[in-house]
């Protein structure tokens, strides 16, 4: 399971990096989104993997810290998700506006000659 | 009453939803009522067409028919998939003139038709009331028209109009 997730993180990173290095703005958006998934999973994996151990306490606050998944990376991922959402939106709009102003969807605003 | 509870039935349904989601306790009943009223008032702001349920007691009957029909269609479609794409099966479109005009009722019909494997709601012309249906196993076009009109439309018209 750990290996699967590690490979998945690697593949998402690789795909994202590949796209981020491409010339079209849309590729950039998709690439950064893929990278965001990869990074979120990475942060998440820093708490180690636990199955069926959600950090939600039982009635009355019962719960053994050792038996539950690490809640801290989860909280961090939540923040990262929100910020990632915001920045994706921003990047998208900027590329729309850039597309409008430069009439071009190259990341540099002009086609290379 | 109307101002506070523009859609009593909706409010009740939402309250039921709330109680199902949480628990059937007094506290949740109060909270759920507040939430349901708030939600239905928000709905009222949109001024949707207001459906009139004339004979809501027919609803269980409809539900039963539909459940069974869906089960049957599930089996039928599953067997089609298992057997593979055979030559003798003909898929095609059926145009069904509907008399049902209530938008909500039409929506319910759409849900039924679409949720039933093997039939797909494709196009509906509001001015003529004709529904274009796609049927996976179109053995007999007239039979499909009959099924829709008699089994569902009639019942829906009973309930809504």
């Amino acid at each position, binding site marked *: 399971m750990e290996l699967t997730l590690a490979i998945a993180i690697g593949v998402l990173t690789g795909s994202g990096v590949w796209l981020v290095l491409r010339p079209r703005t849309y590729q950039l958006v998709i690439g950064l989104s893929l990278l965001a998934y990869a990074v979120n999973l*990475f942060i998440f994996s820093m708490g180690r993997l636990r199955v069926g151990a959600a950090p939600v306490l039982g009635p009355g606050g019962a719960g053994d810290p050792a038996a539950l998944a690490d809640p801290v990376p989860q909280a961090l991922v939540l923040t990262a998700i929100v910020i990632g959402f915001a*920045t994706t939106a921003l990047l998208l709009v900027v590329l729309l506006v*850039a597309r409008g102003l430069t009439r071009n969807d190259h990341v540099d605003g002009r086609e290379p000659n | 009453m109307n101002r506070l509870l523009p859609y009593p039935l909706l409010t009740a349904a939402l309250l039921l939803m709330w109680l199902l989601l949480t628990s059937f306790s007094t506290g949740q009943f109060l909270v759920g009522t507040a939430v349901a009223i708030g939600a239905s008032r928000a709905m009222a702001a949109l001024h949707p067409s207001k459906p009139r349920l004339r004979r809501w007691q027919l609803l269980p009957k409809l539900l039963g028919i539909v459940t069974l029909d869906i089960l049957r269609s599930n089996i039928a479609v599953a067997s089609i998939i298992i057997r593979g794409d055979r030559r003798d099966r003909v898929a095609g479109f059926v145009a069904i003139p509907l008399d049902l005009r209530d938008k909500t009722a039409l929506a319910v019909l759409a849900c039924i038709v679409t949720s039933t494997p093997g039939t797909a709601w494709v196009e509906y012309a509001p001015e003529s009331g004709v529904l274009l249906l796609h049927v996976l196993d179109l053995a007999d076009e007239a039979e499909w028209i009959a099924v829709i009109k008699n089994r569902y439309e009639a019942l829906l018209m009973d309930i809504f109009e």
Partner: protein
Amino acid sequence: MDWTRHLLIVPILLPLITGAALLLIDELRHTLKAFLSIASGVLLLVTAIALMRLADGVVDGGGALSSSYALANWPAPFAIVLVLDRLSALMLALVSTLAVAALVFSTARWDRAGPHFHTLFQFMLMGLGGAFLTGDLFNLFVFFEVTLAASYGLLLHGSGAFRVRAGLHYIAINLAASLLFLIGVSLIYGTAGTLNMADLAVRLPGLSAEDRALLHTGAAILGIAFLVKAGMWPLCFWLPSAYMAAAAPVAAIFVVLTKVGTYVLLRLSLLLFAPEAGATAGFGGTVLLWGGMATILFATSGVLSSQALGRLAGFSVLISSGTLLAAVGIGNTAVVSGALFYLVSSSLSVAAFFLLIELVERTREPAADVLSVTMEAYGDETDEREEHEDQEVGVTVPGALAILSVSFGCVALLLAGLPPLSGFIAKFAMLTGLLNPDGLGSVAEISGRIWLLVAVVILSGLATLVAMMRSGVRIFWAPLEELVPRVVMVEVAPIVALLALCAVLAVWGGPMLSYTEAAARSLHAPSSYIQSVLGTGHPPGGAR
């Protein structure tokens, strides 16, 4: 009840509340918005000065003071803490000074060039305040993001093709850098199990070698994120265009943005990788030193080859960044002290430069400016009622040209590090520190890299002088037609004030340098920082 304790949250809370409250005020009430925003800036400045006094005033045994504020009343390594020391207080004071200047300047026209200027600006101040005060790595990320998000908005403020194109690059690079930040922080958490910087410093020595290697990987990746922000070559190419594209008051406050990266590098490298950290610490220092020098060289070439003033100013930011990074890479108290002085001086002067550029450029091509703005003034009906960008700003003030040219000259001196303004003192302090690490009169072997740095710093000053003179002569001495400076008081005043501050810094260089020296000393003795966060009983370097 000790109310001064809560002073630490003010630099974050005040701009947040101001910014949020401004959202609830109708957009047409410009004056009210500007007034509130500037008032908040001034209050922030007052707070920052109070914090500086607080940080400087009470001295503990180590000769250094820091005090911490645990949010939400949770105990320290678990809660997010704000930590005040001389350095953070200094940075806050710098930010709020620039903020007031930029805000006053913006009231001439920029705050109406698009919606919610003041809110974005306040949020940026909030982000900066948080970044300077926080003692928690992930919280640092959050405030970095607040700062960056606001900077995106401010950079794009006013729109326009050039701005948007530069903004796209700026945003893309910084988004990628933010991802690196996240990777770094989470890797550190994954190996050390904490996010609190002080706690991390305490836990570090107790880690096994393998864990430490992983943690260092995290720290290195984190470092790259900061280096992008600090603008180290080769991660800095976005900076000149972005800063050039930004509206003048925005560029002025952006000057601090690169300093945030440097600040964090300084803070973390001295807290976590103090000399006893061994090989990795040295490695980081080497990278900073050489990277800093490469940055200076690259930026110097940029300064020389810039035709547009904005670009020149952007590269000046890079020179100052490179100088600071190299100084951090050297890392001794004397150099860091000089570097902190340099940080303040160069920030003030580059900010003044950015503000000045707008007036100078307007002087040069009054018509072109208006044209380019009206071309972009497409929008819906609501645009016309509040965006007066195409309005001619300012009136012809007698003597304005003289003020502009004198200001330009002062900026040139400051950037080139020529006397008599603070630019010279700053460079001199750094150079003296480089050559006399243990103070004047002590014998020290000077290594080749230090000589190289001295030479690079001095040469960059010369190149700046050449470039500034070229531009200055072109603009002020060889005008194609009669210069018509159209300026208003609120535009000139901040520039003059910033430059006057540089002069004051030069005259009162002594007290200022003793402050930076104390700041540098306490940075080099992280135990006080750690104790103020975790309480006593946490000796630095001791595993628990």
